[in-house]
């Protein structure tokens, strides 16, 4: 028997039974059926699994679920009802994704960046956006972040 672990995910309180050592990514995907965060490497090297914990970008593949303190937000939780988050809208406007696999992680990293720094420079973006995009969509990610920053600041 595994212990019950209380979690708040996208505003909903819940309890799961899981090995506390289980990576948060597995708990989200396999137990809670939240498939937005992706498995890319499992060793904190790519960022495809990025979620927010109390607003900060965390690589959920390398975060034991039993040690989570704070509210978890996945890409499923950033829109307001039918209205997409400004970052998501900017992603659509700039047609950022190629294969798309990294993009939910990129969007979550961008949301965290803009939360902390509403008007990031090119350099701030390069420093904060360390997620891998195997398709090399970086110029578009950068353009979309700047666009979203304008929308959010307006």
């Amino acid at each position, binding site marked *: 028997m595994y212990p019950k672990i209380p979690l708040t995910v996208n505003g909903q309180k819940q309890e799961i039974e899981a090995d506390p050592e289980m990576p948060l990514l597995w708990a989200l995907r396999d137990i809670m059926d939240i498939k937005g965060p992706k498995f890319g490497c499992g060793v904190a090297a790519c960022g495809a699994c990025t979620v927010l914990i109390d607003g900060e970008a965390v690589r959920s593949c390398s975060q034991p679920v039993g040690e989570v303190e704070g509210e978890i937000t996945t890409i499923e939780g950033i829109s307001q009802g039918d209205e997409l988050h400004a970052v998501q809208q900017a992603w659509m406007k700039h*047609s950022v994704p190629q294969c798309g696999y990294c993009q939910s992680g990129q969007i979550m990293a961008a949301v965290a960046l803009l939360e902390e720094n509403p008007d990031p420079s090119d350099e701030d973006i390069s420093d904060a956006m*360390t997620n*891998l995009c195997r*398709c*090399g969509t*970086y110029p578009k990610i950068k353009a979309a972040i700047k666009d979203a920053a304008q929308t959010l600041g307006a």
Partner: protein
Amino acid sequence: MLKRVAEMSGWGTPLPAGKGRGIAHVLSFGTWTAQVVQVDVTDNTVTIEEVWAAADPGIVLDPSMFKDQIMSGINFGLSQALGQEITWADGQVEQANFDTYDAMRMYQAPKITIELLENSPRMGGAGEPGTPPSTPALANAIFAATGKRIRQMPLSNEIDFI
């Protein structure tokens, strides 16, 4: 196509010391592609600053997506130069994941400008043609900036990149 990429990149105009441009072109998957890469080499460290590409795939149905694919192909190719290497030991490949086989990251990504021509009589591909000329153009740019010829991949075995 070569003329166009030369115009786009200001080919032949002088550059400050430590900078260099290189050019390469290829017919790949039915698409003629030419690229100019510009580098800055400071303290023996290469920054890939900018890439210009002209591609002629014949009729283009979706120019925006086509350019995106060329952009991705360029960054995919440059990623190889930046350090992707497969090595073997004890009958096994040593690289198993992104911690040992990384690709380009945001801080390394160059500015990219792409123009499409539609002269070719046959329609060519979009996904691959960006990749093959990127690394030779980069190696030529490094030669222009430093006088150093690198003939083996990844280029990072012989020169440092940011």
